[in-house]
């Protein structure tokens, strides 16, 4: 049962890229195909990022602990879509013009944000294996908090990309903000809880 659910989640995460591949191969992309590819991979990266960040709050609130087993899969799929998004930008948008890309990364705030989000995810993807989790011990959790910075950068990347900041980029920024705020509040609450415990003890 559990195995089936996990397989289902895996294929659900894979479905958008399969559909995108089909649209690309059959010429069903939009009038600006490169933009279509960038938008689609970008939006799925954000969706999976939100899903990944939602696991811990969901677990805390509902006590549904087994859900943690999905976090790595969602996290790695987030990285997969981000890497695809980045490759499309480098290959199809800029045609591997490294000079122009470096200038973009340095000068264009929205590209800088997106690039930072991507780069910070690389060590997280690399250390997502059981071996690395064991080797890093407590430092693993500390390292993986980089995802918070990545998420903030990703939200700003989307906000700064559009001509007017309305609609979807704003909603994503709000949702990511709430998911991060939950963690801060949770920390504060547990700190307070520990303090009262100490006093009564």
């Amino acid at each position, binding site marked *: 049962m559990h195995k089936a659910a996990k397989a289902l989640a895996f294929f659900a995460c894979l479905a958008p890229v399969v559909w995108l591949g089909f649209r*690309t191969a059959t010429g069903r*992309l*939009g*009038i*600006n*195909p*490169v*933009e279509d*590819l960038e938008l689609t991979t970008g939006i799925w990266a954000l969706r999976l990022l939100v899903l990944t960040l939602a696991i811990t709050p969901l677990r805390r609130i509902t006590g549904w602990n087994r859900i943690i087993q999905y976090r790595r899969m969602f996290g790695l799929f987030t990285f997969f879509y981000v890497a695809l998004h980045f490759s499309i930008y480098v290959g*199809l*948008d*800029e*045609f591997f013009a490294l000079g*122009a890309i470096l*200038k*973009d990364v340095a*000068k*264009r*705030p*929205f590209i800088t944000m997106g690039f930072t989000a991507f780069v910070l995810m690389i060590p997280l993807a690399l250390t997502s294996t059981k071996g690395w989790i064991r080797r890093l011990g407590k430092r693993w959790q500390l390292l993986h908090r980089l995802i918070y910075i990545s998420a903030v950068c990703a939200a700003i990347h989307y906000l*700064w*990309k*559009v*001509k*007017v*900041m*309305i*609609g979807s980029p*704003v909603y994503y920024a709000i949702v990511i903000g709430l998911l991060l705020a939950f963690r801060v509040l949770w920390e504060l609450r547990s700190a307070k809880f520990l303090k009262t415990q100490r006093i009564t003890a």
Partner: protein
Amino acid sequence: MLLKRNPDIRASEITDERVYLKRREFIRIAGSAALVAAAAPLAACSAEPLGAEPAGTGPFDTTGSPLTGYKEKAVTTDEKLNSFEDITGYNNYYEFGTGKSDPKAYSGSLKTSPWTVKVDGLCNKPADYHLEDLIKPIQLEERIYRLRCVEAWSMVIPWIGVPLAKVIERAEPTSKATFIQFTTLLRPTQMPGQTTSVLEWPYVEGLRMDEAKHPLAILAVGMYGKTLLNQNGAPIRLVVPWKYGFKSIKSIVRIRFVDKQPETSWSLSNLQEYGFYSNVNPQVDHPRWSQASERRLGGGLVNSRIPTKMFNGYDEVAPLYSGMDLRRYY
């Protein structure tokens, strides 16, 4: 912060246009068949041949109907034209939504007939013109222009229209009139984007008088041999090919002569990013992205950027700005 209200109708609920058109066609054919059968003489009377109309005219307020008598290729380019599908399927027209396919999807209910354009302000002959009366006295011309969007994409479009200078001439602006302000229709019931606060409505734009009188500036009523479709700014829009696309205001209801630089929608929304002049200029970047290159749409998946040219390649407008610091007046 501005929030977009969700449209009442979900995209999935909207009939696909091909299906819609087929359905329309079916209704039309079935309808006319019934009409012919029931009242053949009447039907024959109403079917006036279009070719019988005088040269240089057309039913300007009926979207997508054939135009005749225009001077072909009055201004042209050797670049490849974008397809009708490209030009009518990928638009920025926030009155119908902010997505590129929103204008095509949501502009169907806009009624452009009858259409009146108010010409007023500092001029000797202010008037409310029926669209026909505004356009008919002037020879229609086909102008094949590059359109460069501030978002760094571009198209090549065969517009049909009249020189703006001719319309200005007729109104006899006074010597005090140094600028022109244009206003788009305000009708939230038929322009769903106007129920959101993406921009301040109605959309307004402006030109300096000498820019407006430049022979390249036109009021377009058609494209690809037909009157404009709603998503392209039917029934009448401005086309200023050396400026970023948003300067070319759509669905114009008012042309007003004024004595100072008028407000424009995008500079009201964000002056740092969108100035009054907004000439295409590869050296002055948008604060958030480069304007040095652009993607010419219609090139498929493997389609590298091309360098953007000063004034979008229309060097003849350069004298309008001699002595001006175009970094300051962006």
